[in-house]
């Protein structure tokens, strides 16, 4: 490591101990070779690499070698650097296989579009010395919405009457945020419940990760609408309700009551919780195997969902 960069590390004393002084990278093409103690020099700043980010799902951890946890040496702030990794891969949604791609350019465009908008992860994109688009992201000061909900240890009835109206209000705000992207010709591309964070201070919701894209199709927002429906079902049910965990015979649950793509997940939640209002349940049923009508745009979804909030507030 050059003396000048070593001096930077020592001058700014990052809030971690640096055991080794690695290499300074101005070209991030070989991101697998960039690791702890290395420094990425991009956009006129230096980022000390602490390690690879990991994706945590279903109790498993997958390292993401192209996503680096860093400290910006000039400011001492934690940053996440997403290095350019262009790939196409198959994604499975129930029985369907969809080819999607990871695009740094797409995420960079969206970061520019949502700069200063707290409903979205914030960051900027810079080209490294080789022309790779590096996204420098601020860490979202919050926690995943689904983990917050899983930590609510009350009955569903209490949750639904006391907590859910507030969650639905904020979720509607998150839907409007997605509509904002759509209005600008963009999609989120990977709407999942672990991609929606709750801000520690304000309680507002914040979307993360915008680098997934798909081929143009006739209904360009379909996948985003599908993701919003999954989250709506999760927050309304206070979790996922799998048919095998229920007495489906006693509850008279049929295939038409389950999700279109996940035939084991019940979306007709009124059969489980009779106090869920009919109009709200009708929204959920648009995502069921029995539905013939689907939402194509966020306004269509919100036209049905917003009145449900009024009903809940009046109750």
């Amino acid at each position, binding site marked *: 490591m050059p003396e000048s960069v070593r001096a930077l590390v020592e001058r700014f004393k990052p809030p971690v101990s640096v055991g080794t002084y690695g290499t300074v990278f101005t070209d991030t093409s070989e991101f697998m070779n960039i690791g702890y103690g290395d420094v990425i020099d991009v956009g006129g700043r230096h980022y000390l690499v602490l390690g690879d980010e990991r994706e945590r799902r279903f109790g498993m951890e997958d390292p993401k070698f192209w996503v680096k946890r860093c400290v910006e040496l000039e400011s001492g702030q934690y940053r996440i650097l997403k290095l350019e990794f262009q790939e196409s891969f198959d994604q499975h949604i129930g029985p369907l296989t969809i080819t999607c791609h990871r695009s740094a350019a797409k995420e960079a465009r969206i970061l520019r579009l949502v700069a200063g908008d707290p409903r979205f992860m914030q960051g900027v994109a810079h080209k490294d010395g080789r022309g790779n688009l590096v996204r420098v992201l601020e860490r979202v000061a919050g926690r995943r919405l689904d983990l917050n909900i899983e930590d609510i240890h009350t009955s569903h009835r209490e949750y639904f009457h006391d907590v859910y109206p507030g969650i639905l209000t904020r979720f509607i705000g998150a839907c409007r945020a997605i509509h904002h992207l759509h209005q600008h010709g963009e999609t989120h591309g990977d709407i999942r419940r672990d991609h929606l964070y709750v801000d520690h201070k304000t309680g507002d919701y914040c979307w993360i990760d915008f680098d997934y894209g798909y081929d143009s199709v006739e*209904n360009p927002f*379909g996948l985003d609408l599908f993701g919003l429906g999954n989250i709506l079902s999760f927050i309304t049910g206070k979790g996922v309700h799998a048919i095998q965990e229920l007495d489906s015979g006693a509850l008279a649950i049929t295939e038409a009551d389950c999700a279109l793509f996940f035939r084991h997940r019940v979306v007709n939640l009124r059969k489980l919780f009779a106090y869920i209002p009919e109009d709200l349940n009708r929204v959920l049923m648009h995502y069921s*195997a029995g539905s013939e009508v689907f939402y194509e745009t966020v306004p269509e979804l919100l036209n049905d969902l917003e009145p449900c909030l009024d009903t809940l507030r009046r109750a």
Partner: protein
Amino acid sequence: MDVKNILISVDASSNALRAVDYAATILAATPGVRVTLLYIERAPNRDKFENEKAWLSQCRLEEERVFEFLAEARAKLVAAGIQEQAVSERKVLCSAEPSIAQTILDVQQEGGFGTLIVGRRGLTKGEEFLFGSVSSKLVHNAKNCAVWVVQ
């Protein structure tokens, strides 16, 4: 609208070729028909490609594929007995908005086409939800024309 003024919307797929075959069979014995083969061009998603060169290369490939398809479709119609000068081709560029279906309907209205013919992919309910269906939208939204959907 003139029912003999016919618009066949194609996408260079085997489904579209089936629609052309069907139209050729039905229309061959009908005097006075005029057929327009319409291709709605949508550029490949630039985000999918690592650089401009790769994207342009794919654009060229698709252009060649469409050129060959339109030539084949025209040949089928003429071989069935439709007069050469009664068949024309049109390419229209479509961005993400409006949709392909809306672009087809705009062309249909502007051109006074009384019959609209399309192939159908046969999507499942789930695929239709996620991706949308051009033929379903045409059936639901077409005005002042007959829509033939060929499976």
